[in-house]
């Protein structure tokens, strides 16, 4: 009986086996990278908004503070999208005829909302909370990127669960003094640009417990150093308490300033001072899902 298959078909069979395996692997890799791709996560995409609002112009150019518009970021889970009224505070006076602002004026006249498209859109089963992050030393830029350099808003990070967990498992890499939350240009401390921090020994909200400065308090005039050390979140009470601390000679340097030259050192210091929960607690499911 003649051979049905030629000898060469052995090679073909082997090759197709290998190929099938490769296809399966390739499919997996493709799906995996698809799932992580900007097409799914929308990282870096700029949706068409009714008004091409430029954060760069308003923040970097005009110096508006984040909370002027995002008013509830410190006190609610939701940072807040400004009402039309906020736009009209200025734009009833300037650029009153600009074509670009027509939707804003229409909204103001008709009472209908300006319909923005959500750029940072988490799945509905994720319960993200702004207030705790802002109050515990996560700056706006840590998640949202350099918004002050974005002419059109886009998502800097993927906002995928692995990205969240990167920080929740090791918050030290992103913690910064609460005084620097809204500082878009904050850079992690380095040996070139160290940070000095001191506790004032009080209980109470996180923001009032630690003061940090970026200039050497020992080298410069202590007054200057202290003036340049806002205690964060718009609350100067903590600093006053530092100065009023008994045992400190008037005008003398606070003795407990610690110098940090790396983010990890600073992060661990702040974790302790801010009473950041443990990685176990922070990465527990119910923190974000319920």
């Amino acid at each position, binding site marked *: 009986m003649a051979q049905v298959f030629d000898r060469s078909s052995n090679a073909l069979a082997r090759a197709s086996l290998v190929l099938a395996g490769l296809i399966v692997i390739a499919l997996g890799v493709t799906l995996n990278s698809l799932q992580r791709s900007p097409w799914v996560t929308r990282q870096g995409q700029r949706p068409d908004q009714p008004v091409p609002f430029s954060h760069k112009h308003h923040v970097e150019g005009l110096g508006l503070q984040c909370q002027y518009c995002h008013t509830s970021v410190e006190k609610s889970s939701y940072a807040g999208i400004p009402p*039309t009224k906020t736009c009209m505070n200025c734009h009833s006076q300037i650029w009153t005829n600009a074509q670009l602002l027509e939707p804003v004026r229409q909204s103001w006249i008709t009472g209908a909302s300006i319909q923005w*498209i959500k750029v940072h859109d988490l799945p509905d089963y994720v319960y993200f909370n702004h*207030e705790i992050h802002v*109050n515990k030393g996560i700056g706006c830029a840590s998640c949202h990127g350099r918004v002050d350099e974005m002419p059109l808003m886009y998502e800097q990070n993927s906002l995928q669960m692995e990205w969240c967990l990167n920080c929740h498992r090791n918050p030290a890499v992103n913690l910064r003094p609460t005084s620097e939350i809204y500082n878009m240009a904050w850079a992690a401390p380095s040996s070139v640009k160290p940070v000095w921090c001191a506790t004032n020994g009080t209980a109470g909200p996180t923001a009032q417990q630690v003061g940090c400065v970026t200039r050497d308090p020992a080298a410069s005039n202590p007054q200057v150093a202290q003036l340049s050390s806002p205690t964060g979140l718009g609350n100067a009470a903590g600093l006053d308490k530092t100065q009023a601390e008994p045992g400190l000679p008037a005008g003398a340097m606070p003795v407990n300033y610690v110098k940090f030259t790396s983010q990890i050192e600073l992060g661990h210091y702040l974790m302790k001072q801010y*009473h950041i929960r443990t990685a176990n*607690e922070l990465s527990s*499911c119910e923190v974000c*899902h*319920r």
Partner: protein
Amino acid sequence: MNETLKATGLPMYKQEADSSATLRKDNQKDGVAQVVNTIAPAKMTLAEVRAKLDGKSGKRYWKSLDELADTPAFQELMQEEFPRQASAGEWVDAVSRRGFLKVMGASFALAGLAGCTKQPDEPIFPYVKQPEDLVLGKPMYFATAHPFPTGAIPVLVKSDAFRPIKLEGNPEHPIAKGKSDAFTQASLLDLYDPDRSQFPRFRGEQADFDKFQEGFAKAVAATKTGEGVVFLSETITSPTLAGQWKQVQAKYPQAKLVQYEPVNNDAGRAASKAAFGDYYDTQYKLEDADVILALDADFLGGIGFPGFLPMSAAWAARHRFDKDKPMNRLYAVETMPTVTGFKAEHRLALKPSEIDAFASALAGGSATLANPEAQKFLTAVLADIKKSGGRFAVVVGPGSSLAAQSAALTVNAAQGAVGKTVFYTETVAPLPSEHAADIKALVAEMNAGKVQWLVMLGVNPLYNAPADLNFEDAFNKVPNTVHLGSHVDETGFYSTWHINKAHYLESWTDARVYDGTISIVQPMIEPLYAGKSAHDVFQTLLDPSVSAYSVVLAHAKTYMTGGAAASGGAKAAGTDAAASAVAAGSSFEQAWRKALHDGWVANTAFAPKTLGAPKSAPVAAAAVSGIEISFKPDSSLYDGRYGNNGWLQELPKQVTSMSWDNAALMNMDLMGKLGIEENEAIELTLNGRKIITPVLMSPGHPNDAVTVHLGQGRRAEAGRVGAGVGFNAYALRTADQPLSAGGLTVARGHGLYDLCVTKVHNIEHRGAYAQRDLEHPESDKDGTYSMAGHEAMERSIIRYATYAEAMKNPDFAHTGTKDSNGTLVNKVGYNPQGEEVPHEDSFFPDNWRYDHVAVVGAGTEVLQNKWGMSIDLNSCVGCNACVVSCYAENNIAVVGREQTKIGRIMQWMRIDTYFEGDLHAPVAHFQPMLCQHCESAGCEQVCPVGATVHTPEGINTMVYNRCVGTRYCSNNCPYKVRRFNFLLYSDYDTESLKFMRNPDVTVRSRGVMEKCSYCIQRIEAVKIEADKNNRAIEDGEILTACQQACPTDAIVFGNMNDPKSRVMQRKAEERDYQVLADLNYRPRTTYTAGVINPNAELA
């Protein structure tokens, strides 16, 4: 077939008597699902039950008759992990599984991909001008009140972006103290009911309210005196509305107002009038009562009883076991077994006529009762009352007969309770009347053609008027009928005008609570459908341009003193107070704002009146022959007003655990006499009127009596939920005998009706372990074996003792004494098998360490959270408030009757009722059962995808987005508290329901397991607030939804690491025990064993 039957409003019957077993087999054979209402429970016959019970005595627990009978068929059913859930198959409609798979094949392929696709664009709609005090994402709280005929319930409304999403009792109100009840909780769903009437109608066509006002005002003005104009209103609860009526009456002296509620307090009114010459309300201060006798008064059942909140709280406070304080003692005499009866130390089941006789004997003090059991009871009660020295109360309520009412007046006065525990005040309803007599007179007038305009304010007489009045005929003789109602209901449909009524959360009004304190009812939301209130209707005849707000504000000046604070003391409402308020507008403004903020107007409570001895002679009991019927409001639906409320329809009724149904309740003897089996449909005939109803055997029901519940059997107009559910008991009820009647006849031969009773859902086979128990019983040796009952006994699910036993051995829940045969003899339900396994012996370590202490700031320590719950079985009255509160808080879906029947009810907590002992006079124990948050939880160990995990704070948490629906966790849960979304139960489409949802809780989709989360969203919210301020969470700062609602403070939640927390104080008590402790799951929810205080003479 289902649909057709439903549409015609007829009850559904199962045609073949004995096909259940066959059908089940069919299912298994070819996999074709059947319509589920043909799956009957394993049948027991009375003979079987009798045979089982014959010669048995002692302490037995059981949940349903089926298990008590313990037939082979029942055993077979119990082989399933989830009785019926499995046998029903997934599909309850007639779509075959194979057909479904075919159709779904393509969709599955797409679904796989859909999981990887990105979310659609989500728009943001910011405000144009944001309200000043609104912080989006943070709820706001406003005080208002839930008006109810028996007195308003002060509530605090949780509002998310100005949408009411949860109601709680007002925590600062002296009456509510933060507690609430099932009806108040569920009234939230009424607001968002998609079936609400959305516009006014004239002859069924959409019309304008203005047009009505114009036409009505003109027509009434034409009569000059208002002759022929009659307002038929529900109980007027608003002082302002009463004031408006007086104005209308002044303008049109011939106009009439008739108040009618099908469930009313006519007997109480009549008794009060006979005794004191006027209508008075009775207030009870049970905190000072050592002995309480409830005469057909279900004061622990819900707000259908006036003063439910303060009375149940006071009863529970005095019923806690404390070695230093004597416990109170509750006696109950009643027909239908109620929660009050089963919480009573001694319950006497009597027919309605026998209750009258009992009451007369009680009032007369003479002892001549035919029934020796009743005689013994009466003697003991009288002796106890005399001994108490005035520290007692005979409690009567809306369900009590005239004889009981006047007996209570007599005894309370004669034995000195008045002024100590019983107080008479003016009535909470501003215009008290006797409803049945009034509507009878009204119907006569209507029949005589004297009524030109019948304006019905919030009533539904075509559904619930007394049957003998033939209200429909009279109604047809009235040329102009106007109906103000929330739904186009039975009456609204046939009325000339229908006006859509605003919900109380949408409108301005005022109301008095139990003690007379006035609450301002303020709107929480712009009326969803521009609804109107009774204020607007009255104002049509006065000045249509004045809004309800202005009317309430103006009338508030009569009872709110503007200068009260300045003058150092509040004046009572009166004319000079009104004058001063007008003079000092600004201080009135302050008082008004304070009243709105606080939720009540200070110093408006009634002062007790001194009325002297009642003048009336005790009412002699009339002789009644034959079988008696007793009419009771439904424990879930009241008089039917909540018929279209899915939460309440699905809520298993108190004691009977019946859901989506009502039934004729009777005891086993009567069933035997009439030859009726449970679940049989029978015909009840009373005075020639007939209804067909299913039968439910009710342990503890008196013989020769039948109880039916009002409020079901609504017609198609009721709405998509309530239409065609159950039978309409109003069809038998007459104006003269609204509470009970004799001469009932019962006829068989109407097929079967498979009742929807949830209590059999959770008696599940617990495998070989339970089997071994049955074969080698340790203490329950001669038992009437029933699986759950046996387990309750053998494994000590229910533990309790008498006061004397507890005093002797406070550790009774954990120790037992054996007699010479080695049998445990004390009545405490203790068994070594029910004991906890010492932690050191366990192979399973704790999931986490819970002992972390953070030092925040100088000397401030924050203990790690380790959550736990404790439930006091002494205080739990089984009123269901917690269950409905849980529905609202956790976005729990309503599944409908068919799904409920096969055990797929979604509620996260249930109230288990364990009956004990004699079938004729059982004792019942209520046990709230919810996720126990076990430390070594079985569910966690079997989940293949880690969708249920242990948090570092000890909570067993459910991660919905991970769940793939294997249901292993539910199989492995011994408490059977996990709920699976077999189908897409959550309503994602109805717009109005979206407003209602708690935004902090995921709305679960199909294929996802869910369960009690200890209200994790509340915990997280408080945790974030505390973490922001670097402080510990204070005890009591987190209230779970069930705990917050509980009127008797039975549920306590808190941090188990804090020895000072209330939950740890409860857990530290000797009576604290775990349910099924021997499994070593180490539940965090524990129970406090009950202590009762029986009278030795009746024991």
